[in-house]
């Protein structure tokens, strides 16, 4: 079969499509966005009526995927690592309900925080939920593991996690496809107790989940994705790699084989027996893993009472944070390291910035003007392009914690007496998890000004649709904001006086105000115009 050139994200999506998936559920988030975008473009998905529309947030996405699994069909929910915090409640409980149709939870981690506010490691969540985790090391494995994940999920009736990291999600390589499988037909669960987590039932479910653990270990021991090569001669060191780290290990030895015993882990729980063998055989152990020292801690803390050195991120052999690369791995192995020249001093940093012509820029500058008499420290913000309003020349915002936190942090600060307390949140982020915070404010008529920067898209992740598109005023009205205090303006320089005036009036109003500056994102506008031009051509 022909090789497809696919990003890791895309390979996984194509694998899921070929493995007979019936629905993808997701909210966009770097580096996971391209999984569902691929499905949305796919003719195969359209022909098979595979669901791929965006959900309001990761929690609603996770729950919808559980629902599709309930109805007997294969479903995948996709998110970035911090998205799993949002979806954590249904995720943890899905390990108890188990799956009917195959249920796969794909989480893309972002070590080194290329586009994230932390670098938490989703394998800890997988372990927490006590479910099998798959961690592909290359694009072909992304594709193949989609099949494997659904197979495991249906075999044990358990959700399976696939963990990706940025460098695999966003790296392209050749992928060979397999014969596609048909989708499942709709089939209600045979066991009426299965999705019913009343305490009495949940206790039984937990015992069942515990009873599956040895079988998950056996699966990992025999997994086609875990490679156990213990016959190398040099036993001064044994190496355990997980996921992508295996590539860096092979890369630093070039065409030569790795001279030490190596275990490549791509399926969890960790293959206990093989790790014991490696430990017994070798004088020391080096653990190479992308993300937090998850495996290293397991080996150090639990399985072994021995005294041989275990090297990795905990003892400083590798950096404790940040993603791996071939050079770090070479140094950890005591191999010669290469480096070009230092970056010349003249090179200036070029941090990301709001685009030229961005509507948020006008909204921020007018807001600065309206509140200058109060000094800095009054504006709570959120996750999106507008977080860049922190940077000069705007210096417009003072917080960025998690999706939706702008509104509720403004509320808490207002409760403490801060005036004015202003929240700045994007249209898509408001839909994701701003509405419930707004309810809190309305319930108590808190004195806050909530600015919903409406650029008519989910901008930061490249311009995706969102569920409350075109309905923001109705939503705010429906939740109970007084219609006189839902204000809109077109954020552009010539409207300066009007913008500043509206901000000032609503700051003066004692109660909940919503201001919606609305102008289309310049990037999506550019894309639209380009498509029009191409059509004409």
């Amino acid at each position, binding site marked *: 079969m022909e090789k497809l050139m696919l990003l890791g994200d895309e390979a996984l999506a194509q694998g899921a499509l070929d493995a007979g998936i019936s629905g993808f559920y997701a909210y966009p988030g770097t580096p996971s966005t391209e999984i569902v975008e691929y499905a949305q473009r796919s003719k195969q998905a359209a022909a098979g009526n595979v669901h791929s529309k965006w959900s309001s947030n990761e929690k609603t996405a996770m729950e919808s995927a559980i629902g599709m699994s309930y109805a007997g069909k294969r479903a995948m929910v996709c998110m970035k690592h911090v998205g799993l915090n949002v979806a954590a409640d249904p995720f943890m409980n899905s390990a108890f309900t188990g799956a009917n149709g195959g249920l796969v939870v794909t989480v893309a981690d972002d070590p080194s925080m290329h*586009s994230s506010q932390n670098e938490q490691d989703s394998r800890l969540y997988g372990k927490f939920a006590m479910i099998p985790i798959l961690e592909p090391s290359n694009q072909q494995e992304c594709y193949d593991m989609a099949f494997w994940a659904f197979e495991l999920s249906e075999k044990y009736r358990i959700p399976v996690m696939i963990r990706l990291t940025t460098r695999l999600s966003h790296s392209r390589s050749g992928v060979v496809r397999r014969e596609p499988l048909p989708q499942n037909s709709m089939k209600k669960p045979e066991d009426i107790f299965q999705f019913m987590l009343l305490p009495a039932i949940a206790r039984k479910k937990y015992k069942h989940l515990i009873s599956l653990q040895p079988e998950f270990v056996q699966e990992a021991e025999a997994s086609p994705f875990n490679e156990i090569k213990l016959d190398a001669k040099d036993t001064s060191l044994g190496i355990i790699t997980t996921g992508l780290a295996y590539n860096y290990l092979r890369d630093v030895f070039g065409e030569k084989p790795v001279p030490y015993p190596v275990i490549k882990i791509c399926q969890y729980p960790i293959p206990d027996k093989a790790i014991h063998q490696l430990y017994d055989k070798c004088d020391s152990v080096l653990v190479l893993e992308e993300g937090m020292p998850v495996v290293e801690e397991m080996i150090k803390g639990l399985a072994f009472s021995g005294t041989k050195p275990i090297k990795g991120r905990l003892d400083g052999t590798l950096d404790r944070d940040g993603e791996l690369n071939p050079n770090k791995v070479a140094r950890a192995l005591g191999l010669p390291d*290469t480096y070009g020249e230092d970056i010349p001093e*003249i090179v200036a940093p070029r941090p990301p910035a709001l685009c030229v012509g961005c509507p948020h820029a006008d909204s921020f500058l007018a807001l600065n003007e309206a509140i200058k008499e109060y000094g800095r420290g009054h504006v709570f913000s959120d996750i999106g392009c507008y977080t860049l309003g922190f940077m000069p020349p705007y210096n417009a915002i003072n917080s960025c914690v998690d999706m939706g936190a702008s509104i509720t942090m403004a509320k808490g600060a207002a409760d403490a007496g801060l005036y004015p307390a202003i929240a700045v949140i994007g249209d898509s982020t408001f839909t994701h998890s701003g509405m419930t915070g707004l309810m809190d404010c309305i319930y108590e008529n808190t004195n806050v000004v909530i600015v919903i920067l409406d650029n008519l898209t989910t901008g930061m992740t490249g311009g995706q649709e969102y569920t409350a598109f075109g309905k923001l005023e109705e939503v705010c009205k429906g939740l109970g904001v007084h219609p006189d205090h839902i204000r809109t303006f077109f954020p552009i320089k010539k409207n300066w006086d009007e913008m500043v005036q509206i901000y000032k009036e609503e700051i003066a109003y004692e109660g909940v105000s919503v201001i919606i500056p609305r102008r289309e994102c310049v990037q999506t506008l550019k894309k639209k115009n380009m498509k029009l031009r191409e059509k004409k051509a």
Partner: protein
Amino acid sequence: MKKDIILAGVGGQGILTIAAILGQAAIKRGWHLKQAEVHGMSQRGGDVQSHLRLSDQPIWSDLIPFGGADMILSVEPMEALRYLPYLGKEGWIIANRTPFENIAVYPDLEKIYGEITRQPNHVLIDADTIAKDVKANRAMNIVVLGAAIKHIGFSVEEISDAIRDIFNRKGEKVVEDNLRALQAGIEAK
């Protein structure tokens, strides 16, 4: 045979198109390819880079090691220098002279050029002007690619074919513009 190339520029300058063209040419040779891209926040007007690895042997790492690149191909002069730690001893630096000035204080351009031309293997061309001269204003990136291909070891025919493959769906005019830009880049001094 392997070619490890760092593609550099500012978000939106078209380095992923260069990667797609070189990738397509490599696939037609039956070569292996890995190409790591930057998405998300880092794309918003910040510096962007792509690690493009092409080889007739299987490739392991998605990332090029420091000191391991055969080439830095940059559509912006200062961005070329940002990746010098990746450049190997024999490596080439191919860069566009036209700065992309979206920061408060852009450094002295002559000093930037000085740092580039200090490298033993360099090509520094005015790709923006060249693209305009051949009436292919939007194909500055392809001009820079044109200047690079003989140092990568691809033939004009291979790259031209790849350009046709990649731009075909955008119409014949776009294909022709890009082929002119490629030729102009090849001839650029």
